[in-house]
């Protein structure tokens, strides 16, 4: 297991490395762009094409999820949540075609978590004002202030580490299993490496596919819950 390969170095500011993760993120972005263009190509008021129906279904699903989790007030977050979910799912599933998944890099998930942290503080600031924002650290009692201060750092840190650790752990287990099955097949002199091809595919379904979708969903849910917790609730 090693880090992302460095493709080339841009010779400014003491050398900026362009590595596998960044290139794969660009690939994911282009892929999502193409998928979006295909799904929304020539939209009509009364949909007849299957692609438009699929696009509408996706938008309605994410809108309902955001509305039920965050409330009507935060509907503006629905496109961001869809973007986050799609980039995370595609970034994890890109490992199925042999590329290094983008979420296997701590920088990617930390970046997403920092955006979430920015929104948490921005919404808290906007909804309760400067004094209210400062006062929110002394909730529920003033003794809790240091713990709430630590929470500023630990919230994005734990979100980023959770997603990164799950993907990294899954891929480490898959790497170990591949080499283990390769060892077993060469030990019992199989003519074709049947164990190596068949068995990991089923396990990969769990570790790569299920794990990737699950972590993307959890990341989005946590983002929504954190953001909607700091702001005012719907009924107030």
């Amino acid at each position, binding site marked *: *297991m090693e880090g992302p390969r460095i493709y080339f170095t841009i010779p400014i500011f003491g050398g900026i490395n362009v590595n596998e993760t960044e290139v794969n993120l660009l690939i994911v972005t282009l892929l999502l762009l193409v998928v979006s263009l295909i799904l929304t190509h020539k939209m009509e008021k009364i949909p007849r094409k299957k692609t438009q129906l699929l696009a509408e279904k996706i938008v309605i699903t994410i809108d309902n999820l955001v509305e039920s989790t965050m409330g009507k007030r935060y509907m503006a977050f629905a496109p961001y949540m869809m973007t986050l979910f799609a980039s995370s799912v595609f970034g994890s599933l890109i490992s199925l075609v042999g590329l290094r998944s983008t979420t296997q890099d701590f920088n990617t998930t930390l970046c997403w978590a920092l955006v979430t942290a920015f929104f948490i503080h921005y919404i808290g600031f906007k909804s309760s004002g400067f004094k209210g924002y400062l006062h929110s650290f002394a909730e529920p009692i003033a003794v809790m202030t240091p713990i709430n201060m630590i929470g500023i750092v630990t919230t994005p840190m734990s979100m980023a*580490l959770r997603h*990164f*650790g*799950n993907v*990294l752990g899954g891929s480490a287990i898959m790497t170990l299993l591949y080499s283990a099955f390769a060892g077993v097949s060469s030990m019992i002199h199989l003519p074709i490496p049947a164990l190596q091809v068949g068995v990991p595919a089923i396990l990969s379904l769990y570790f790569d596919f299920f794990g990737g979708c699950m972590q993307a969903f959890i990341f989005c*849910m*946590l983002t929504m819950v954190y953001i909607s917790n700091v702001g005012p609730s719907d009924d107030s």
Partner: protein
Amino acid sequence: MNGITGPDLIRAASAIGAGLALIAGIGPGIGEGYAAGKAVEAIGRQPESSGAVTKTLLIGCAMAETTGIYGLFIGLALLFFNPLL
């Protein structure tokens, strides 16, 4: 016992440390099992609320898993990108 250098000792200790760090997996295992059992009970009592229960269960499991992931991260760090060497 001759020929054991400092880095060798660090490598050996790191392997033991990685094993010890993964003991952190016990806590989330128990916690998530408990949460899943309670979720099954809740769905058994109120089958119509299974969607909300499942969603809450997944988020709760993710939260409970965090400490285990920290342990896993420390273990992988010691094995693959050891900062001490």
